[in-house]
């Protein structure tokens, strides 16, 4: 079945990204935009734009029935959900399936398993993918028994959550009851699922994830790994591939574990299997699977030469992984900076508003994914991602040099951004050496010189 017209059920830079590949493939597009995004850059790039509702996402982007109705009403044969919003909602994929609209992504069953962290842990266990010690905590007695076996510190996590949401760190056994109660209440409110589980807290670990593509018939390939350890409160801001300083043998085991996990699900589409890696101990643990396109997919595209959105569309239209064959592995190294509308000097407060003028870099080895042009409005209703600057080089040193230069010439006037923080990280000796852990950014932000500078200005 060929896909000829796609409804893009998303906004911002990822809508641009999807529209671009559709243009290249000569596929018509309908952008489902909220009232706030009617005049956005993606709205002009799409073949047609329909306004699906008011600015607030709960009344527009997050309404499955409006998205499917918009697709049916404009004769679209498929929906690309992007990331965030409805991309990982099993119920949305099911609604598409019921109405004969192709959901560009995994099946609703696969989304349900990936979205249920306990089910995902069970699936990982079934194919010998290492898990951090832990398990379900259905009662306080079980939780305490389990906690004694895991040891402190540990994390209380929501079974229906992910990406760090609904997570509590427990450092003393005496705090466990309160943390369990709080986590269950929060999880119930946020995800409609109060189940929580315990997991060992790995303090000095790196976040390494493996990009996979599956045809839904049991064939899985991987496109290498990404290191996303530069994060603040579980929000990634710099990602790179390959993960620096990981021994060849450990890297191979990570790739293999991701293939086994996705294979167990007979995974369809593009997905990412996330791991915590303890390089010193030569160990890694399964975290979760993100059953969608990731924000940071361009670094993998830069190094692999594979257009992941095109691969998603090919898989959804039944061409399987055929298009993957013969694509050149370009090699080298790629690093991405997420440019956010947030103010590091004001505890990363979001800074919506109007971008008076913008200058994005244009240089060899540099790719920019963005929906922001001069005069663009950044509405307060959505995430703060303005764009991504991706540098590719023959090695990490060259990619870093290019990225530093690109960040230096980027200008975004009118709103606060984290450009300055990126420049600081890219010039920091610890980051330049490579292989920082997930606590790196918090430590950098707490450095005395920085704290003093913040106080004085």
């Amino acid at each position, binding site marked *: 079945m060929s896909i000829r017209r796609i409804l893009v059920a998303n906004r911002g830079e990822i809508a641009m990204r999807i529209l671009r590949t559709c243009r290249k493939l000569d596929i*018509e597009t309908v952008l489902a935009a909220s009232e706030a995004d009617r005049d956005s850059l993606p709205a*002009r790039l799409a073949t*047609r734009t329909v306004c*699906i509702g008011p600015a607030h996402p709960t009344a527009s982007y997050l309404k499955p029935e*409006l998205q499917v*109705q*918009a697709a049916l*009403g404009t*004769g679209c044969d498929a929906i690309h959900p992007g990331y965030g919003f409805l991309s990982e909602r099993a119920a949305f994929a099911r609604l598409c399936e019921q109405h004969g609209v192709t959901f560009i992504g995994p099946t609703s069953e696969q989304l349900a398993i990936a979205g249920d962290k306990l089910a995902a842990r069970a699936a990982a266990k079934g194919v010998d993918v290492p898990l951090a010690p832990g398990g379900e905590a259905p009662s306080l007695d079980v939780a305490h028994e389990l906690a004694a076996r895991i040891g402190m510190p540990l994390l209380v996590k929501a079974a229906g959550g992910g990406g760090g949401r609904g997570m509590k760190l427990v450092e003393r056994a005496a705090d466990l009851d309160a943390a369990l109660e709080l986590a269950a209440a929060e999880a119930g409110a946020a995800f409609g699922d109060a189940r929580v589980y315990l997991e060992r807290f790995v303090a000095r670990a790196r976040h390494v994830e493996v990009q996979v593509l599956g045809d839904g018939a049991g064939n899985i390939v991987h496109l290498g790994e990404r290191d996303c350890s530069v994060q603040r409160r579980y929000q990634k801001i710099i990602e790179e591939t390959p993960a620096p300083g990981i021994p060849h043998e450990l890297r191979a085991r990570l790739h293999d574990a991701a293939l086994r996990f996705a294979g167990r699900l007979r995974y369809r589409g593009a997905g990412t299997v996330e791991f915590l890696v303890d390089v010193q101990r030569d160990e890694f643990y399964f975290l979760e699977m993100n059953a969608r396109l990731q924000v940071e997919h361009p670094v993998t595209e830069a190094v692999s030469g594979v257009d992941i959105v095109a691969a998603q569309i090919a898989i959804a239209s039944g061409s399987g992984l055929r298009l993957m064959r013969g694509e050149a592995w370009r090699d080298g190294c790629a690093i991405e900076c997420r440019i956010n509308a947030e103010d590091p000097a004001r505890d990363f407060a979001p800074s919506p508003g109007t971008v008076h003028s913008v200058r994005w870099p244009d240089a060899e080895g540099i790719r920019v994914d963005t929906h922001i042009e001069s005069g663009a409005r950044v509405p307060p209703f959505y995430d703060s991602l303005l764009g991504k600057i991706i540098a590719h080089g023959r090695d990490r040193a060259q990619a870093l040099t290019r990225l530093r230069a690109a960040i230096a010439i980027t200008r975004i006037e009118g709103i606060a951004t984290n450009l300055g923080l990126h420049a600081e990280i890219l010039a920091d000796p610890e980051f330049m050496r490579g292989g920082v852990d997930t606590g790196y950014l918090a430590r950098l932000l707490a450095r005395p010189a920085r704290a003093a500078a913040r106080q004085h200005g």
Partner: protein
Amino acid sequence: MSLTARDIAEITRLLEDSSFDELELEIDGLKIHLRRNGDIPRFPAKGDRPQSTSVESNQARSPLLENSAPRETPPPPADPDLTEVRAPLLGTFYRAPKPGAPPFVEAGASVEPDTVIGIIEVMKLMNAVRAGARGVVRDIRARDGALVEYGETLLLIDARESR
């Protein structure tokens, strides 16, 4: 491609005169799907690109997708006595309670704020749209059975004539 617009009109007439509700036809890669009673066609006849040919340019895009520029919010009517009734949500607009029934309102009809002027269907859920103003229906802009966007003007109400 040998089918002309006249052929398609003729085929439509044949369906209308027949006892069938639906017709699916494929000729030389051109697929036509006709359905009676204003139901949303999955693949609009005119909107579909022939499967056998590859279309390169934007000019060859289907009529359905011609308006590539985002629709501007229509300026409010210059006449202060005219009220626009806008779509409260995206969906399929129906002027009548069911296929074949007389429309809720015609141009010239007097309406009260709570008079139902149409239905917007979202995934089999029927949402009544009310006039929201008192007056006389002037200009019915939304087509029966068409997709209406959030905020699209459905019809105009003239407040003068009810005084």
